[in-house]
C-alpha cells in the first residue's frame, strides 16, 4: 500500500527532503546487527518501505513524491541534496515550478496560482498515483505562514479530494514561530486551516517553536538552522509512518491509522510526541527502560508537554485540580528491543477520553521489533487531543485583531478574496475550538 507525498512550497519541500532522507537512512543505512531483527524480517521491512515510499525506476530508487513550488530555487536545492545522499533520488519529471512566487499571499496562492496550475499539478499526481500497485492515500507537506504552501496547498488538497474520493489525505502543516516569521502568517493560517478542514482527513500539526526547543535543549545544537529543525520533524514523521504491526498483526497503513485517530469528522487535528531525543554522543551512554519511557510519554500527553524535559508533573488525571489534556484517540508506536513486554495500560485510562467514547477503543498500539534510527527503544505518540488549542486560539486572536483594523486586507482583496471569506474562516475555526474545548 503506497503513499504519495506532495511537497508544497519552500517549507513543504525542505521538510519533505529531510523526511525521505530520514526514512532512507533508517531503512538502508543501518547495519543488520543494530536492527535487532533477523535478516529475513529486515528484508521484509525494506520491501515494505520501498513499496510504501519509493518506486524503482531506471535502476535507482525514486521517491513517490510530487514537488510543487512557485519558484525554482528550493526544488533544485532539495533534489541536489537527495542526489548527494546517494540513498534515493527525486524524479525530475515529477516537479512543478513557476517563475514568480506567491508573495506570502494566501489569496494569490489559492485563487490565482490554484486555477492556473491545478491541471498540470493534478496530472503529475495522477501519474504518480498510477505507478502505485495499491494507492493508500496522500501525505501533503505544507506550511501555514507562506503563500504557496498554504494557499496552493489548500487548493490542491481540494482537487485531490475531488479526484480521489476514496483515498485518505493527511496534511502535515508547519505552524510558524510564535514571534512572527511572516507578518500575515495569522491570516494565512486561519484561511488554510478552515479550507483544509473541509477536504482533508487529518491535519497533523508541527510547531516550529517546539521543534526548535527540542534542538536546543535535547539535542544541544548551538546554532540551529532550518535543516536541524527539519531533521527533527522528519524523525517524528518517520517514526510513525514507517511500517509497524498492531496486536492482531494488521499493518499500520495510512487508512488504518486515520480511521482510528479521526473517529469524528469535526475532530481532525493531530499532534505528535516522540521520545527519546538526544544528541548522537549521548545515545551510547544512555540506558532507558520501557516503563520509564511510557510514564514520560503519558505525562507529556496529560500535561501538554512537547518534549521530555520540563514536564509539569503536577498535572494529574483528576477532575479537580489543574485541567489536563483530554484526547479523542491515541496511537502509540513502539519500536526497538522488547516491545512485546511494554505495558500500555496508562493510555487506556478512561479519564483521558470523553465519556461518550469507549476507552478500550481509544488506544491503538503498533509495534516493530526493528530499532528506529539508532535509538534502541523509541516511542511515538500521535494523538487527537486538545494540545493544539493554545496555539490555535493565539493565532485566531491575532488574526482577528488585525482583521478588525482591516490591515493588509487590501492585498487579499486584490487577488479575489472577499471579507466574507475571512469571516467564514473565523467562524469555522471558532467552531473547531469549541468542539475541542467541550471534550
Amino acid at each position, binding site marked *: 500500500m503506497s503513499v504519495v507525498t506532495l511537497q508544497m512550497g*519552500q517549507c513543504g519541500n*525542505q521538510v519533505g527532503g529531510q523526511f525521505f532522507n530520514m526514512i532512507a537512512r533508517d531503512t538502508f543505512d543501518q547495519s543488520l546487527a543494530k536492527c535487532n531483527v533477523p535478516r529475513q524480517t529486515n528484508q521484509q521491512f525494506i520491501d515494505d518501505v520501498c513499496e510504501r515510499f519509493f518506486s524503482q525506476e531506471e535502476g535507482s530508487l525514486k521517491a513517490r513524491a510530487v514537488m510543487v513550488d512557485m*519558484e*525554482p*530555487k*528550493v526544488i*533544485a*536545492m532539495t533534489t541536489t541534496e537527495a542526489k548527494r545522499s546517494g540513498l534515493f533520488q527525486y524524479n525530475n519529471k515529477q516537479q512543478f515550478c513557476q*517563475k*514568480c*512566487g*506567491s*508573495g*506570502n*499571499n494566501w489569496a*494569490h496562492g489559492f485563487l490565482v496560482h490554484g486555477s492556473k496550475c491545478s491541471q498540470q499539478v493534478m496530472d503529475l499526481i495522477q501519474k504518480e498515483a498510477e505507478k502505485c500497485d495499491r494507492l493508500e492515500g496522500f501525505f501533503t507537506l505544507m506550511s501555514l505562514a507562506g*503563500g504557496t504552501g498554504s494557499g496552493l496547498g489548500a487548493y490542491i488538497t481540494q482537487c485531490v479530494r475531488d479526484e480521489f474520493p476514496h483515498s485518505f489525505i493527511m496534511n502535515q502543516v508547519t505552524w510558524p*514561530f*510564535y*514571534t*512572527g*516569521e*511572516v*507578518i*500575515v502568517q495569522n491570516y494565512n493560517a486561519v484561511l488554510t486551516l478552515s479550507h483544509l478542514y473541509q477536504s482533508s482527513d487529518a491535519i497533523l500539526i508541527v510547531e516550529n517553536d517546539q521543534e*526548535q526547543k527540542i*534542538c*536546543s535543549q535535547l539535542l544541544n545544537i*548551538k*546554532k*540551529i*538552522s*532550518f*535543516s536541524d*529543525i527539519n531533521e527533527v520533524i522528519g524523525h517524528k514523521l518517520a517514526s510513525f509512518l514507517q511500517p509497524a504491526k498492531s496486536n492482531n498483526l494488521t499493518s499500520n497503513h495510512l487508512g488504518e491509522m486515520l480511521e482510528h485517530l479521526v473517529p469524528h469528522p469535526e475532530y481532525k487535528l493531530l499532534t505528535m510526541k516522540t521520545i527519546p531525543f538526544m544528541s548522537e554522543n549521548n545515545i551510547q551512554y544512555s540506558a532507558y527502560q520501557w516503563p520509564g519511557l511510557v510514564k514520560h510519554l503519558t505525562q507529556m500527553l496529560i500535561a501538554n508537554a512537547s518534549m521530555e524535559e520540563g514536564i509539569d508533573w503536577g498535572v494529574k488525571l483528576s477532575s479537580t485540580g489543574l485541567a489536563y489534556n483530554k484526547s479523542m484517540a491515541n496511537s502509540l508506536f513502539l519500536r526497538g528491543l522488547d516491545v512485546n513486554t511494554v505495558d500500555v495500560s496508562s493510555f487506556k485510562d478512561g479519564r483521558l477520553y470523553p465519556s461518550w467514547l469507549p476507552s478500550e477503543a481509544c488506544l491503538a498500539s503498533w509495534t516493530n521489533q526493528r530499532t528506529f534510527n539508532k535509538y534502541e527503544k523509541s516511542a511515538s505518540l500521535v494523538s487527537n487531543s486538545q494540545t493544539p488549542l493554545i496555539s490555535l486560539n493565539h493565532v485566531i486572536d*491575532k488574526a482577528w*485583531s*488585525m482583521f*478588525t*483594523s*482591516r*490591515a*493588509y486586507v*487590501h*492585498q487579499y482583496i486584490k487577488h479575489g478574496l472577499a471579507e466574507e471569506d475571512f469571516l467564514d474562516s473565523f467562524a469555522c475555526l471558532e467552531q473547531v475550538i469549541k468542539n475541542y474545548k467541550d471534550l
Partner: protein
Amino acid sequence: MTQSIVVQVGQCGNQIGFRFWDLALREHSSLNKTGLYDDAVSSFFRNVDTRYSDPADIPVGHGLGKIKDLKARAVLIDMEEGVVNEIMKGPLRGVFDYKQLITDVSGAGNNWAIGHKMYGAKYKEEISETIRRAAELCDCLQCFFVIHSMGGGTGSGLGSFVLNLLHEEYPDIYRFVMAVYPSHEDDVITSPYNSVLAMRQLTDNADCVLPVENQALVDIVNKINQANPKLAERKSSRGHVKAGSAISTGDGGIVKGKDEKPFDSMNNIAANVLLNMTSSARFEGSLNVDLNEITMNLVPFPKMHYLVTSQTPLYSVSDVHIPPRRLDQMFSDAFSKDHQLIKADPKHSLYLACALMVRGKVEVSDIRRNIERLQSSLKFIHWNRDGWKTGLCNVAPVGQPYSLLTIANNTCVHHTFSGLRDRFVKLYKRKVMYVVYPWKNNSKHVSQHI
C-alpha cells in the same frame, strides 16, 4: 527566476544607478566563478551576442551557457547630457546599450513642472517605447526599480511622470521607488516644492517607497571613515577594518579608486540597499523572501508604503580575535538612529511592521534570539505586536561574512515629511518662485498635495 528593470532618472538617480550596476557586477563576478549565465545573473543583466548591431539576446536556457557580454536591464533618463555622457565614457559603458538612454540638452532647471509636464509630454512616446523594449526582453518581469531624487527638476518631475506611466501601462508589475529626499540645508531652493509635488505621485503610483536622506548618508560615511584608517597609513592595531568591507566602498568594482567621485561612497550605501533587498530573490537560502513578499508584509494599508531602511554592519573587522558578539551587535545597531538611511529615530516611534533580511552565515536560532531580545525595546502597533518578517539568504555580501538589512514601516517617516511640509508652507506663504510654475493652475491643486 524573475527579472527586474532599473529606471534611473535625473542626475542623482543616474549616479546612484551607476554605483548600483558597478556593485551588482562586483557581486555577481565574485560569486559566479564559472562564467555561466544563470538565473541569478539574468535577474538584472541580459546576455547578448554583440556580433549583431542590435545585440541579440541570449536566453538563460538550461543555465549552462557561457556569458558572452552582459547588458544591464536599465533605462537611463536625464534631461541634460552631462551625467549620462560621463557614464558612457567611463568603464561601465559596455554594460549599457545606447538604445536604453533618453537624454535632452537643457535640463529641467530644478523645476518639477518642467520635468513633469513639459518633458513628460515631449518624451512620453520614447520613454514608453524604451521601457517596452526592455520589458519584452524579460522572461518574467516582476518589478521596476525607479531611482530618483525629490529635490531636483528631472528626478522629481520626470521621475514621477515615469512612475505614472509605469502604473498605467504595467499595473501588475511592482514599482519600488528609491527616492532621495532633500535635507534641511539643501542647496536647491525650490526643493520643497518639487518634493511635495512629487510625493503625490509616489503615494498614488508606487507600491513601495524607500526614502533616503543625504544627511543620513553623510553621517554614515563619516562614521565609517572614522573607523577606517586611510589605506596609505595602514596600522596593525586591533579592530582594524578589513579593506573593502565597508558598505560605502566600491573596491573590487570596475571603477578604480582614483576615479571615485565625492558622492560615490554615499551612493554605494544606497546601492547596497537595493542589492541586499533583492539578494533573497536572486540567491538560494533557507527562508527566501521575494520582492512581492516585501510589499505584501510591509504595506498594511495601500497608501502607507514608505519604508525606512537601515543597513548593518557598516564594515567588518579583520581581527579574528574579536568575539562573535558582533552578530548580536549587528541586530542592535540596525535599530539605532545612526544607521537609518533617513534622519529619524525609529525606536521612539511606532512600528507597523518590520522585515529583517539576513545574508550570510546566520542561523534561524540567532534571528529568533535577537527578535526576542529586541522586542521589548521597540513599540509595535497593537494589531501587529509580532510584526516581524524574516528572510535568510545563504549568500553573504561581498567583503562581509553576514549582513542585515532592516526594512520597516515606521511612523518616524512623518518627521521627514512634516519637515518637508513646513519648508513648503514657508515658501508658499510668500509665493516665492511661484511665477516659474505656470502649469500649476490653482492653489487647490497645491494644497491637495499637502
